[in-house]
């Protein structure tokens, strides 16, 4: 990849984040949040997209972003009131912007018709506002390279008389490192100014350190350009348009063509810079110069109140406000190659195993836990755990990045189906491994489509059923049983079981006289080629819906299930592994093998008395636990490690909760205890193994398998079912 392409990739990554910020900001406003910073944030997002797009010559994107930005700018300055109708328009404009970005990523341009319509709508709102203000006169708020947001430093300047035809502009131009890093050249920009008129250029080299302290890639120089020309400030600013995020410029008009800024009534640039830089004594000045914008000839603009943190050089004419506190800076992110993190995770896994091995050997040499060595080991274990937690947290990501994309989808489908839909999300901060994040978006999209298209009724039908006309779709994420569970629910009509059954019979998916439970009928919708929509719609109903979802979920080592109540709605539950994470597990022995059971699945462990174990049928058995009978599951037999059954009364029983079959009692030979284990994928070198979620490496360096409790319970049910089914059918 050449360098420009790399930068472009970064730009599109940033775009995705910015578009996410834009949408979540608009949604907060839509939900009634009146925080003014939100408007600034959405403005910045659009502005940054435009800036980057300009650098890559993505003209269609720039043009649209500009129109969007103009309207937002009016909103920001209060010239266009932010009504809820406008927010809806802005949300749709954000969708169009996202389309443009997506199109630009593929080297094309966005849908021209949709763009034109949206541009017209936006412009109508822009001109419909109480006043028009050219955006260039507005003070800009820009995040700089570190993500620190500088509020505009507003300078209240002495009022000007009617400007002479030939004006003198003082332009101070200070490039940041990033300007050079992106292959821009200060000299070219100054030459560009030279084209506007007569210039005198002065080099400001105050920031240049002594040679020993010189950083070769740091920008130290600034320039002061005195431009004599008949131009507007806007015209000058255009020169810096594509580098405005990577330099700080001030443009002021010299009041008297002969007087220089230092002596004249105009602001003292050097003093302003010094004052602003004094606010950031820790930062190397050329790295984080505050952006200083001047607002010329608009003296009635309210100035930001000065704060004591800034040494104000000219108290009467200059007021400045420092950057907001560090909370914004904390949101700054760094980009790291995921491979490096994977490597780190592997190494830490090794460290954990090594530490466990060391502990075992030390114990083998007869050191007591209270000895110096024992205590040292304890501390090492604690540290190892902390490091492990921190490392795992690096790669884990909240599902928010996926959930954020869903409101748009819901809006679009709602628009296409003419239904009123409200999306409620829950558990956005549930963290899951990055590799899972990347792949859950597709099944969620399918499930949401299905919920709106098939699940929800039309507004009229809902009203007739006595429900609110607006349907609710719920998207939630949570951790359960060492897995991540995604739920997509709706409050629609629920599954029409007789119809589903009839369709399955019509399509030859089941026999006409098949005896099916409600649950089994519901699950028919996952069969390939099943589609309940009588008309094929654009949204779903092409007969590739739910079976595709199930396939892709299974490909991830996950499961999908549905529960539905007629008239009340359906709920899809997606359960996925956390692929690479640490797991608290119970280490058990089964038929000479060491296995790990995820602790989250275990309700309790007990040693049952012989009287509590009841035989049921030929092979089955149940355990009486406090007045309830729980099916016994012999782990060794289900996995095929042994054929003889363990007598539960001689072994240990783990009561577990499973998604599929409720509570079950797993029978094992013995329990070693609890410990934290590193999950190692079996799939990376082999393949999924039934009943096994993953593997781990124990303190002695051997591999132990981690049980998939749900699958195990399901397997134990399937076995006897298959044997008994024919005889039951024959009897009937």
């Amino acid at each position: 990849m050449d360098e420009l392409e790399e930068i472009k990739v970064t730009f599109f990554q940033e775009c995705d984040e910015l578009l996410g910020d834009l949408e979540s900001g608009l949604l907060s406003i839509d939900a009634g949040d009146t925080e003014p910073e939100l408007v600034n944030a959405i403005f910045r997002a659009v502005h940054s997209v435009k800036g980057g797009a300009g650098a890559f010559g993505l003209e269609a994107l720039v043009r649209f972003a500009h129109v969007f930005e103009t309207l937002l700018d009016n909103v920001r300055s209060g010239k266009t009131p932010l009504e809820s109708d406008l927010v809806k328009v802005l949300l749709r404009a954000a969708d169009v912007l996202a389309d443009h970005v997506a199109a630009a990523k593929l080297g094309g341009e966005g849908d021209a018709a949709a763009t034109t319509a949206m541009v017209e709508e936006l412009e109508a709102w822009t001109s419909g506002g109480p006043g028009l203000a050219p955006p260039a006169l507005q003070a800009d708020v820009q995040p700089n390279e570190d993500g620190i947001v500088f509020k505009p430093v507003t300078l209240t300047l002495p009022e000007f008389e009617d400007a002479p035809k030939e004006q003198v502009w003082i332009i101070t131009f200070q490039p940041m490192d990033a300007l050079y890093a992106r292959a821009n050249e200060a000299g070219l920009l100054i030459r560009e100014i030279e084209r506007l008129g007569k210039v005198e250029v002065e080099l400001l080299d105050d920031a240049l350190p002594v040679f020993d302290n010189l950083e070769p890639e740091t920008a130290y120089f600034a320039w002061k350009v005195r431009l004599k020309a008949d131009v507007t400030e806007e015209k000058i600013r255009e020169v810096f348009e594509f580098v405005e995020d990577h330099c700080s410029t001030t443009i002021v008009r010299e009041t008297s063509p002969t007087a220089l800024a230092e002596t004249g009534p105009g602001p003292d640039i050097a003093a302003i810079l010094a004052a602003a830089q004094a606010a950031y004594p820790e930062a190397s000045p050329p790295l984080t110069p505050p952006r200083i914008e001047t607002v010329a000839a608009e003296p009635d603009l309210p100035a930001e109140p000065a704060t004591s943190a800034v040494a104000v050089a000219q108290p009467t004419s200059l007021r400045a406000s420092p950057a907001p506190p560090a909370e914004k800076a904390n949101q700054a992110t760094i980009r790291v190659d995921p491979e490096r993190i994977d490597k780190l995770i592997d190494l830490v896994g090794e460290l954990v195993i090594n530490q466990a091995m060391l502990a075992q050997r030390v114990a083998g040499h007869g050191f007591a836990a209270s000895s110096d060595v024992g205590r040292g080991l304890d501390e090492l274990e604690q540290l190892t755990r902390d490091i492990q937690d921190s490392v795992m947290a690096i790669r884990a990501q909240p599902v928010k990045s996926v959930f954020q994309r869903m409101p748009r989808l819901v809006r679009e489908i709602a628009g296409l189906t003419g239904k009123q839909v409200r999306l409620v999300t829950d558990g956005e901060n549930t963290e899951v491994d990055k590799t899972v994040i990347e792949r859950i978006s597709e099944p969620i999209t399918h499930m949401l489509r299905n919920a709106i298209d098939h699940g929800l009724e039309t507004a009229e039908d809902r009203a007739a059923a006595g429900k609110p006309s607006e349907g609710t779709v719920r998207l939630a994420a949570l951790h359960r049983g060492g897995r991540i569970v995604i739920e997509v629910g709706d409050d629609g009509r629920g599954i029409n079981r007789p119809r589903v059954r009839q369709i399955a019979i019509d399509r030859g998916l089941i026999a006409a006289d098949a005896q099916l439970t409600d649950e089994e009928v519901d699950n028919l919708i996952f069969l390939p080629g099943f589609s309940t929509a009588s008309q094929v719609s654009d949204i779903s109903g092409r007969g590739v819906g739910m079976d595709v979802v199930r396939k892709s979920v299974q490909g991830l080592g996950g499961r999908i299930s549905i529960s539905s109540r007629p008239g009340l709605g359906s709920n899809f539950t997606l359960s996925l592994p956390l692929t690479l994470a640490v797991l608290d597990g119970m280490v058990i022995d089964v038929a000479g093998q060491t296995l790990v059971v995820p602790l989250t699945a275990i309700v309790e462990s007990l040693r049952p008395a012989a009287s509590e174990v009841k035989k049921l049928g030929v092979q089955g058995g149940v355990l009486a636990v406090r007045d309830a009978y729980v099916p016994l599951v012999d782990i060794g037999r289900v996995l095929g490690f042994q054929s003889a059954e363990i007598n539960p009364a001689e072994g240990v029983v783990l009561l577990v909760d499973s998604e599929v079959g409720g509570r079950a009692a797993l029978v094992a030979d013995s329990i070693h205890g609890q410990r934290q284990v590193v999950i190692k994928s079996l799939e990376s070198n082999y393949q999924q193994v039934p009943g096994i979620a993953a593997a781990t490496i124990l303190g002695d360096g051997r591999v132990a398998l981690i049980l998939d409790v749900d699958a195990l319970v399901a397997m134990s049910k399937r076995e006897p079912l298959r044997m008994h089914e024919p005889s039951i059918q024959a009897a009937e």
Partner: protein
Amino acid sequence: MNQPAITVANERRELTSFWAGDQEYCVDIMSVREIRGWSAATPLPQSPSYMRGVINLRGAVLPIMDLAERLDLPPTEPSERSVIIVVQVGERLVGLLVDAVSDILSINPEQIQPTPDVGCDQAKAFVRGLITIDDRMVSEIAVERLLPELEGLAA
């Protein structure tokens, strides 16, 4: 017809040869990641019997396949002298349990003869070709065909 292709690929190839079930086999040396001694493997439930289980290869879970049993020969009795050859198949690593490593062969591609039509399906499926060195016959294993078909993961 095949003549031009063979003469173009005139570079010498290096192969690692080893013994499995009284027969000599080899794999391309470029696919061999390492050779290590036998250590007890953790058995995998519901897996073919030639999958001996998994071992810890510096933090990664490495499946171990008994090559002899995979080729329908009598299963290998692992001993202290048994060897695991870790080979790379695509993105995956798999350990082949064999009796002993014997040699490094440097051959011309012309020395490889196509597998003749023999009765044994396994031999036909997994042997890419035959190489004659002095009076020894060494069969080249097509490692990419060894792993069982990955069901349900094709997407």
